[in-house]
């Protein structure tokens, strides 16, 4: 007997039938659908691939080479006109492992707007007065390892129902005669409605730190274009290794934070107590796309330090490596100078 498995339209996790509610529920994101709803949604998904899109997907698979890094396992995509020689992440040589296969073709892309020269200048500016980075981190050799990389991103459009109740207090105080008066007005705060978020990004690359990618947000989605192989020319692209179901917890957390923030803004002016907040995801649409990042990694004493720059807006973020030797020398010299000066002054005043 064949069994049919339905995937959650929100997070792509397996749906299970709940006899109590007579609904298919997602244990992962908490969504619930009737059988009719899920059949309709799945049918729509199956019928949503027009012939032109299918052709583009085929072209993508034919003209995209996949390179594999034996050292760290990274998989890098490049068009068939260029050859990837080293891994953007661990800087070890990569080998051609074949043509692309599977559903890795992105639907949209934002092209690079920051040139390599500007990226290098931004990196130098970011280093700025960080005197304690290792010299090799600032070397030209290291700078040449900066890679123009299209990072795979899952973008989620979330529709949420918000229901919020809390007790709010507003106080004022005044003095009259020998007494200090405090008047507190108590309100029941009720908020409910829909919060819609468009394009919450989460990178589908496990090697690059999620926080680093979040730090170079936001991207201006008005520059989103339909994916074309021509955008890859001169750059590399990463193949996603984190599915949308795996990034959904991050998306959910960010969406909930946004809802918290919206609600907090709406009750500004009150001292809030006993809040009861419920956020329910009623629909999530996913988009898979490539976003431009100038990326550099640096292995220092067994730890990988990453620098990233938004290839569209130029926003930079990263963790600079700290040379403990340099820092110890500097702080030791300051400490020694204080000791010597203090000893001489103290001895002179004794």
């Amino acid at each position, binding site marked *: 007997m064949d069994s049919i498995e339905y995937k959650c339209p929100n997070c792509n996790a397996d749906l299970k039938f709940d006899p109590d509610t007579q609904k298919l529920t997602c244990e992962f994101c908490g969504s619930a659908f009737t059988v009719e709803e899920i059949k309709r949604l799945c049918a729509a998904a199956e019928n949503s691939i027009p012939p032109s899109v299918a052709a583009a997907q085929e072209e993508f698979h034919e003209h995209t080479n996949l390179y594999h890094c034996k050292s760290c396992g990274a998989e890098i995509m490049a068009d068939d006109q260029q050859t990837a020689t080293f891994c953007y992440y661990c800087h070890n040589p990569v080998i051609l492992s074949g043509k692309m296969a599977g559903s890795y073709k992105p639907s949209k892309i934002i092209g690079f707007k920051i040139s390599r020269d500007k990226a290098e200048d931004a990196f130098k500016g970011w280093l700025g007065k960080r005197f304690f980075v290792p010299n090799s981190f600032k070397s030209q050799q290291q700078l040449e390892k900066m890679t123009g990389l299209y990072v795979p991103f899952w973008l989620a459009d979330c529709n949420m129902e918000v229901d919020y109740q809390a007790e709010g207090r507003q106080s004022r105080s005044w*003095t009259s005669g020998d007494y200090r008066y405090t008047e507190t007005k108590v*309100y029941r705060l009720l908020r409910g409605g829909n919060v819609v978020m468009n*394009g919450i990004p989460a990178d589908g690359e496990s090697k690059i730190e999620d926080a680093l990618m979040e730090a170079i947000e936001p991207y201006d989605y008005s520059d989103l274009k339909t994916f074309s192989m021509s955008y890859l020319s001169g750059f590399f692209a990463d193949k996603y290794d984190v599915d949308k179901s795996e990034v959904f917890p991050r998306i959910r957390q960010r969406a909930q934070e946004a809802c918290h923030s919206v609600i907090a803004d709406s009750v500004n002016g009150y001292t809030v107590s006993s809040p009861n907040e419920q956020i329910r995801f009623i629909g999530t649409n996913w988009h898979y796309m490539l976003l431009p990042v100038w990326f550099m990694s640096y292995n220092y004493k067994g730890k990988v330090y990453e620098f990233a720059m938004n290839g569209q807006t130029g926003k930079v973020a990263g963790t600079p490596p700290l040379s403990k030797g340099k820092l110890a020398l500097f702080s030791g010299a*300051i400490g020694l100078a204080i000791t010597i000066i203090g000893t001489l002054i103290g*001895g002179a005043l004794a």
Partner: protein
Amino acid sequence: MIKRLASLISAFVICFVLFPLSCFESHAEMLTGYPPESTIIDEAGIYDDDKETFDDLNKELKDTAEELGLNLIIFLAGTKRSDEATMIFADDSYDEIFGEDTDGIFYYMDDTEAFGLFDYISTSGSAVLKYEPHKESIFDSLDFYLPSSGEKIQPEMISNAIHRYLRCLKSYSSEEISPFAYHYDKYKNTYAYYTKGQYTVSDHKPWFVYVIPFFKSLIAGTITALIIALVTKKNYKFKGSHDPKSYIARNLSKFTVNQDVYIRTDTHRTRISSSSSGGGGGSHRSHHSSGHSHHGHHGGGGHHR
């Protein structure tokens, strides 16, 4: 006429400038011609009529000097000298009699029956380090026996004071001198201290003066270095932030329920309590203590009666 006057003034100015300043220094008063031995010198003539008592006191002094290994002089002053002249007189007289930086004490007891009596203890050699910390205690204990300013001097008062003074010297002689003890003679700009058990007078500070400041500075330097290291390490941590609301579709998001339902008003009142407190008073004490020497390194301190 004007030229002559000008040249005269010029010559006077030149002579005044070139004239050695030392020529103006008056010869410092000091005791001369005394043999280098411990004794009581009775300038005031207190014991002129009681030679026996004087001899007994002198013997007691010599015995004490021999016991302590110190040169001791007790000078019963009959001439009124200024405070500074007294200090110079005591320091220089000691050096003249016993030599510079020898171990001993010159006790100048003002027995002039004048107002503003000023006693002075001049220490030399190892006595500087041993007795400098106890000068005030010695003076305080002698105040009980010695006459106040303007009071008539009785020989027995002086005798009792001398007995007491010698007992004080004996009692303080047994106290250990700290290995970090030193004395600075501000007039000679010299330091007296022990180095490897030897009494030393030097124009350099002893090394141990720097020990405590060194350790204090070492702690301060270490704390500063640690703070620099910690702050720098913090600055080298990853810093990233994003606005959670940046992806909200404002035109599609709306509250269908947005109510602030009034429930009640609570009013409290508290009596304002006032309190006040006053500060305390303080006392101010002044203290006079000095050492002065034209020759050897001296410690010393004066005391007004």
